């Protein structure tokens, strides 16, 4: 077993473990931080697979996103100290089934898809960044821009829906 395989396995297990921790706590803060570390471990997996840009990007984005998620949860629940003993699970049966089905589907894809021959040579990190940039702004531009705009719209819409309308003369 090479060191690379060891680290991929290690971070993979860490990612799964932190994912489980998310649901084992009753505090939104702990839950958010556990989710963050789960995603960070995923970023570390990318790093062990020599995908430097993706790894660093994952590690960076998730820290911001999870923290902002935490503050949104706290704001909407008005529970900054996390003392509400909030259960992190809901619709248990549905979530269990959905989780299991997606797990089986992911494993099936990993096992049954013909991935082609294993690459023995790969471009160095700087070249990877260049290739990724060309990919994002060339062939896949439409996909990524559409996804980006959709996410932005969804975020703005979600925030707008969540804000209580302020009556005139009632503010402050």
């Amino acid at each position, binding site marked *: 077993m090479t060191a690379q395989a060891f680290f991929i396995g290690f971070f993979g297990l860490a990612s799964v473990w932190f994912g489980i921790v998310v649901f084992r706590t009753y505090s939104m*803060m*702990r839950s958010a*931080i556990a989710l*963050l570390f789960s995603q960070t471990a995923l970023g570390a997996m990318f790093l062990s697979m020599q995908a*430097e*840009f993706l790894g*660093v*990007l994952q*590690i*960076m984005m998730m*820290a*911001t996103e999870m*923290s*902002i998620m*935490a*503050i949104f949860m*706290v704001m909407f629940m008005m529970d*900054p*100290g*996390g003392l509400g003993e909030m259960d992190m699970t809901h619709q248990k049966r549905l979530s269990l089934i959905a989780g299991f089905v997606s797990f089986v589907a992911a494993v099936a894809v990993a096992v049954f898809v013909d991935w082609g021959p294993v690459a023995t040579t790969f471009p*160095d*990190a*700087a070249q*990877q*960044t260049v290739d990724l940039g060309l990919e994002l702004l060339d062939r896949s531009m439409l996909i990524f821009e559409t996804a980006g705009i959709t996410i932005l719209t969804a975020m703005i819409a979600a925030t707008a829906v969540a804000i209580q309308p302020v009556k005139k003369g009632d503010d402050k």
Partner: protein
Amino acid sequence: MNTLIILVLLLLGAYFVAVLENWISKGRFQLGAPLFAAVAFLGRESFIPRKPDQLFYEVGPVLLLLSAILAAAVIPLTPDLIITDLATGALFINAALVYVLVALLMAGWGPDGAYSMIGGWRFLGQLIAYAMLIVMPITAVAMRAESLLTTQIVVSQAELWNIVYQPLGFVLFFIASMALAFLPPFDMMIAKGELAGGVESEYSGMRLAIFRLGRLVLIITLAAATVVFYLGGWQGLPGIGLPPWAWSAIKILLVTAAMLLIGRYIPRIREAHLLSWCWIFGIPLALLNIFIVGVLVLEFP
């Protein structure tokens, strides 16, 4: 070897920041004060709050120090003096610095104290304000260098430093890094008078020493990043024959001094006000900066 040298230099830098901060804020220039303070911290009793989240409480200060050091790992002080010249260096600095926020959140929430918790959430509010102003100016810098390698970014400024090439980006990055290092006037999360120290309030002894050291290292790291991104890194002014490391040192110390000095003359800014300023003016300006740099890069290569 480089790792060791940079770590020692960071420690030295933190010492200088401490001396400077003492000098600028209290008007006392005492070279020995930081050392005595450090020894005193180590000798003091470490109070532990009654019901802390052990993990968050202990990890917070260490993570703050660690993320500042990690960010410094990709900053070149001379062409060779760099811990690791990552192909994604400019992005890696961002990634490491975001964990400053995670550290402060953990340190704020962990001790189970109202003051520190409010401090932690305040810093999160501040992050939403400054985060884009760190990322977008760095994007413009990388656009000019056509690389994320920090050494390449320095080399790209051989003819003209970025502070002249993209002054708007420099101003935004400078403000954002002051907010990131929670220097005055953006230091409401460790507000002494109002929150009894905010995030720091439940820490004492050794842990507080690590927290403070982490903050000092963070300040020097951000000053070094500013120098690398905007002030030509190790490159000197023509006509003055100083070695590259001396140029780096002089510039970093000047930027640090500027950061500390400016904060003394501006009233403190609440994170909510910073938030609205950053999103109404800062981000459009940062986008404008990217646009201008894009036009410059394409038209005058």
